[in-house]
């Protein structure tokens, strides 16, 4: 029991210490001209859906609830955001070539259709990020028209 207690104390101290590790917040002040919303005429409803359900991990600006600032939760999140942005960054939409846009749109459509996006681990907490049937349809239809325009 004594050993356990010591370990527990060390863990607790470490837990406190890691709170002081610097965090890189994904909160850019500027919105680049290449943003998806700026280069496309996105209907307001679709725009809202994308902002709420996608932009936290797929853009340079994340809205952090307080619990996402606690370590190690913040580290998990940081990695998700990094990965999400590497796959697709809506802020950089217009820097993608037509070939890449086409590829991205295909993936967006597939992932939303299959319910792989938004991630379950994300909607678990962000209940408002769950796309309703209508929202899903609106987003998918819009993405499909964009894709058709490219081909």
């Amino acid at each position, binding site marked *: 029991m004594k050993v*356990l*207690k010591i*370990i*527990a*104390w060390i*863990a*607790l101290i*470490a*837990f406190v210490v*890691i709170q002081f590790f610097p965090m890189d917040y994904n909160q850019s002040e500027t919105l680049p001209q290449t943003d998806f919303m700026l280069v496309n005429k996105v209907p307001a409803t679709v725009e809202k859906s994308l902002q709420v359900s996608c932009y936290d991990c797929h853009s340079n600006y994340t809205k952090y609830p307080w619990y996402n600032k606690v*370590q*190690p939760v913040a*580290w*998990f999140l940081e*990695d998700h955001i990094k990965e999400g942005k590497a796959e697709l960054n809506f802020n950089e939409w217009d820097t993608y*070539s037509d*070939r*890449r846009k*086409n*590829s991205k749109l*295909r993936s967006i459509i*597939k992932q939303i259709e299959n319910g792989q996006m938004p991630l379950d681990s994300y909607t678990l907490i962000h209940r408002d990020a769950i796309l309703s049937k209508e929202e899903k349809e609106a987003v998918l239809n819009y993405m499909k028209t964009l894709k058709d325009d490219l081909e």
Partner: protein
Amino acid sequence: MKKIKMSIAAMLLLTVSFAYAQEKDKMDHSNMKMDHSKMMDTKTDAKAEVILNDYFNLKDALVADDTKKAAQLGTTLVASLKAFDSSHYTKEQQSELADIIEDATEHAEHIAESAIDHQREHFKTLSKDITDMVAITGTKNTLYQQFCPMYDGGTAWLSTKEEVRNPYYGSQMLKCGKVQREIN
């Protein structure tokens, strides 16, 4: 008691985060070196041939429903795409090729870490990229562009053999498709 509970909770969090950090490290070190120098042909682009070769191996793995092998070959393909050198092409071709390689790399990366359905989805776009690449680089072999009207509204792929072996359905519908056109 309350203290112990708290400490245990903290410990759990900590273990998770350490395990996580370690895994992250592992991922960073998985850079593989590939030796593809054996293929040399003065007339055609040897590095493009390597890419094609990897692509065909990948296609065969998908035909055989072999997810694991397809994943490995996805990694191989990422490496050979990276090794591609477009410096002896025209400026215009270079930018087109860079675009193709970037896109293809992303699909190959996904194939390296996905289940078979997802691998096939990415293989579709990858096939388009590779076809566009061959249009620029050329190849010493005769290739067949084949087409399956059933998969995702109609989907093409490349093969070195004329007889159809469908990489999108594998054993489910092995011979579904037809030769659309011959390259070379």
